[in-house]
Structure formats: C-alpha cells, structure tokens
C-alpha cells in the first residue's frame, strides 16, 4: 500500500510542478491537506491561474474529504477512551488506506490505539516523499503539459470512482451528479461544478435512503 501511495505522491508532485508550485508549497500542501483528490483539485484550480476563489477551493476540499467525517466517526468506539491530545493528532494523519487497515485490525480484535497512528504514519511519509520526488523529477522534463498531466485529476477521479461505484451501485446518484455538473459547468466552471455535484449526490442518497437497505 505504501508503494501505491508513493506513486500517487509522485503524480501529485508532477502536477504541482506544472502548476508552478515551489517545493515548499507542494510539500506543505501534502503535509497539511494530505488527501490526493483534494490536492489534485486544488492544484488544478490554482493552475488555471486567474483569481481562483479560496472559498470555492475550500468547499471542494470539504466535499472531497467528507468521507473522513464517516471514517473518524467510526473510530470513536475505539479511540474514544484515549485522551484528546493523542486522538486528534492521530486523526490528522488518517487516510483512506490506514483507516481501512485499522478497521480490519479492529475487527480482528486489535485494541491498541497506537495501531491507527502507526498505520497512518506508514502511509503519510511515502505521500510526502512521493510529492518531493515527483516535483524534482518534473523539473527534468521539458514540457510537462505535453505529457497529459492536466488529465491527472480526471484520470484519478475516474479510476477511484469505479471502485466506489462497485461498492454503491447507485445509478440515480451518478446520473443526478452528472446532470448537475453539466448544468453548473455552463455557468460556473471549476470548483463550483464539483461542489454542486457532490451536494446533489449526497442529497439523492439522503432522500432515497431506505432503512431496510442499510448494511
């Protein structure tokens, strides 16, 4: 898993270089945000130049990372008895991979809260290192744009969306989100398209929820 995170980090570093982010800016972003899709979206918005609204970026990050609300809520029964000075730093480093690993371990009977922290750090460090490696190596490529790096966010969204769709099988949500995106894209392209699609998708799931179908 760490190898996959490292490769993803390199991809982000390449894109950050194309968006003219400095090494310090890219590394700070990877450390503070630590979310692949959210960072790709942020960098893409920055790369379009102009005065991109910070608010739109923050909202897009909020929607892309809304799953972490669920993740951290699910960790409550495990980490709830630990002092806050241990749990909140642990949550800062939590990612998709480390959360899945942790929930599997918890199901097996693991009860040491340090496991969550260890698994999270084990994926956080490759992410930072990958970012740096990608950004440095991008400097050696003459014209990064020709390599299709602007397509990175779309490609990762499509690939990760496939996996998520396999778990959810929600055509209504997908169609509603796509329709919303196409309409909003005509009037306010960029970050707002993503925000609107995310909100509508969540709303559809909320309205269509049937208690009997709960897992």
């Amino acid at each position: 898993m760490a190898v996959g995170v490292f490769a993803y980090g390199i991809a982000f570093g390449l894109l950050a270089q194309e968006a003219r982010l400095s090494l310090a800016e890219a590394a700070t972003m990877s450390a503070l945000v630590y979310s692949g899709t959210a960072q790709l979206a942020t960098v893409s918005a920055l790369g379009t130049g102009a005065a991109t609204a910070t608010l739109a970026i923050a909202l897009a990050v909020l929607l892309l990372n809304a799953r972490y609300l669920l993740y951290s809520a699910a960790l409550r029964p495990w980490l709830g008895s630990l002092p806050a000075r241990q749990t909140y730093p642990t949550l800062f480093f939590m990612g998709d991979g480390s959360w899945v690993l942790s929930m599997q371990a918890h199901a097996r009977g693991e009860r040491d809260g340090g496991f969550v922290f260890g698994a999270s750090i084990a994926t956080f460090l490759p992410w930072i290192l990958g970012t740096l490696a990608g950004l440095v190596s991008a400097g050696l490529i003459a014209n990064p744009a020709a390599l299709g790096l602007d397509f990175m966010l779309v490609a990762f969204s499509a690939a990760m969306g496939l996996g998520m769709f396999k778990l959810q099988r929600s055509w209504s949500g997908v169609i509603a989100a796509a329709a919303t995106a196409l309409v909003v894209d005509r009037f306010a392209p960029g970050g707002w398209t993503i925000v609107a699609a995310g909100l509508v998708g969540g709303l559809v799931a909320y309205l269509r929820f049937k208690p009997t179908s709960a897992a």
Partner: protein
Amino acid sequence: MNIRPEILTVLLAAGAVSFFCRAAGFFLMRYVPITPRLEAALRATPLAVMVGICAPVMARGNPAELAALGVVVIATKLTGNDVVGALAGVAAVAGLRAFFG
C-alpha cells in the same frame, strides 16, 4: 523555495478544512449519533464529486480524452488497482495527443 502569500492562504484554508473533516466526525459522535440516512449521504458524496469532475470532460468530447477515459476503465478493471488505472489513462492521453498533434 519560498511560499507565496496568496498560495499560503489557499494551503491553510484547504488544510484547515481537511483536518476539520478528519476530526469533526469523531468529535460529533460524542453528542450526535450519525443516523444511517446521514451516513448514506456522506458515503455517496465522494463518488458524486468524482462524477462531477469527469462529466464535463466527457461532454467536451475530445477524442484523446474520451479514449483515455476508456483506458482508465479497462486498466483499472484488469489490474484492480486505481493508481495503475489512472496513470495508464494519463499515459494514454499524452500518447494520443502527441499522435494527433
């Protein structure tokens, strides 16, 4: 190697929102139990966001980009790995653009 002020604003905002997402679910569970209905909405949001990213690109109908999306789907299905699938798509779009000019 320095950080520009306007970028720093974005970084701090995005970082703060990210940490909020990581911490808030845990914090809220202390007071408000997340209902299954709310949970279903939260779980559906990331997929909808990803659809929102891809749909305008598909509507634009650029042949190289459409073909590359097809490559992403096939590569992800074959390898079962989304990072491999995405990078195959980026490579495909780069190659196709070079080919079509």
